[in-house]
């Protein structure tokens, strides 16, 4: 489990799995991320909170290079994401290298984004077979295990449209896990779900946390955040205004905006 937030450049400290430094990103003239620094320890759960437009989804999407930062960098497992550091400068990586880096990081989206023309099984084995070269029978067996883990074994031949939102999101989690990532990113995984389906998805994520999976989760489920997070981070206006143990951030926020937001959502 995480020992809070290690200080950047701590000599002798275990290198965190994810290091974000000075991350900036603008869409047009709108600055979405304005210098973000963040560490995520291996095996820990970090929850990103904040009002909409605060930059939490963009921060998450920079971690697997779905967004290109304007300045600063994200490092996962000791490698800078999307760039190579050489001769004191950052050089953009070719697509093939970015693709390789992404295989280490799984992502679960708000809208599930399952492939509608493929069955549940095909959704799960597509990437392992195509990218990692896993033999198909092995991938099929693995898919069965993962589906059992998210409580959907036996639904292999269903198409996504035949499943409820909660089931689709659990398949999406299984699909991300099929690549055996070192880190899982969740972008508001329960925001598109009917209230009665939220619990089943949170249950799966909770099991992953207990199993020691490294995760960064953007969510508005404050109760869930308090329960599973090792670290809670509150963003506002593209900056981290509050971070630390969930109890401190959620229950005794020092920042004015954080206090207002949390009292509104609780």
């Amino acid at each position, binding site marked *: 489990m995480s020992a809070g937030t290690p200080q950047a450049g701590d000599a002798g400290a275990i290198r965190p799995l994810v290091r974000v430094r000075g991350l900036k990103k603008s869409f047009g003239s709108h600055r979405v991320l304005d210098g973000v620094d963040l560490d995520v320890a291996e095996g820990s759960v970090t929850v990103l909170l904040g009002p909409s437009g605060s930059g939490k989804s963009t921060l998450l999407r920079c971690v*697997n290079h779905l967004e290109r930062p304007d300045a600063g960098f994200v490092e996962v497992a000791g490698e800078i994401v999307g760039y190579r550091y050489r001769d004191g400068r950052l050089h953009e990586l070719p*697509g093939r290298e970015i693709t390789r880096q992404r295989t280490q990081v799984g992502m679960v*989206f708000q809208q599930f*984004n*399952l492939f509608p*023309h493929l069955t549940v099984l095909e959704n799960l084995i597509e990437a392992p077979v*195509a990218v990692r070269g896993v033999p198909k029978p092995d991938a099929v067996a693995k898919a069965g295990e993962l589906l059992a883990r998210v409580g959907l074994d036996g639904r292999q031949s269903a198409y996504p449209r035949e499943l409820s939102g909660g089931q689709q999101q659990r398949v999406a989690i299984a699909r*991300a896990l099929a690549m055996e990532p070192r880190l899982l990113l969740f972008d508001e995984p329960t925001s598109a779900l009917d209230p009665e389906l939220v619990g089943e998805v949170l249950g799966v994520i909770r099991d992953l946390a207990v199993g020691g999976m490294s995760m960064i989760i953007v969510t508005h489920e404050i109760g869930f955040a308090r329960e599973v997070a090792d670290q809670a981070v509150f963003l506002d206006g593209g900056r981290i205004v509050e971070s630390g143990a969930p109890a401190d951030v959620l229950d005794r926020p020092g920042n004015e905006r954080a206090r207002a937001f949390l009292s509104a959502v609780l």
Partner: protein
Amino acid sequence: MSTSAEPAEAIGITESPHRDLAAQRVIPLRHPGRWIATAVVVVLAAQFVHGLATNPFYQWGRFGYWFARPVILRGLWVTLEVTALSAVLGLLGGVVLALARLSHNPVLRTVSWVYIWLFRSVPLIVVLLILFNFSALYRTLSLGVPFGPSFFRFDENKLATELVVATIGLSLNEAAYAAEVVRGGILSVGRGQREASAALGLPRWYQFRRIVLPQALRAIVPAYVNQLIGLIKGTSLVFYVSLLDLFGQVQTMSSTYPGDVVPLLLVATAWYVILTSLVSLAQYWIERRLRAGERG
């Protein structure tokens, strides 16, 4: 205003307390207008069919004589050849143009845009006639560096048989329209699909081939079949570049047998209807196969 007992009384249910309202049959509303319209249409249709069958003007005997004559079938074969080649080449060209228009490269984007704009602006018959007269404009066609050495050299006069001119003209035209059809199909696939496949580490070309294209095809197929039907009928223009397709043979035979003009035109009509019907049938089958995932 009303107490709880009143509404039931108001619609008269209490008048027949013995009858169970839930067991009543519903009497459907009559639609006399529909019956009148149906009668008018049926009469008109019957008159038309009667006219077709009995009017000696159509000369159905001659129709039977010409329908499967070798000269007509030769023309039909040319029509099929030109259509098939142009459909395939046009679609390939359309995919390339669509990808160019969606690319990040501004030069490719512009070139693709200009091409589509140009070929959608110029009538097909003009394109065909320009190509037909190409040998007068360019005596040789060579592939190489502009103003520099050339690698290949074709003698235009040998290259340009009527079939080649017709196929090139139709393909160039078809590609411009197909490009828009394909582009629309690709854009109809949500951005989340591409992001999800990128996040899984699928390579770009693989994302396009396995995830985006199969979903885009659902939007592409109906629109492209429409396009294809236009192409089948568009091939009748190749007559003007001396290629004897179905329509060309009908025209030639008409000038030799002036009395058979109408039955010959009916023969052409029948064959075009048969061809487009076969294409529509193929569309039905393809769409059914692509619908996997929409229903069980």
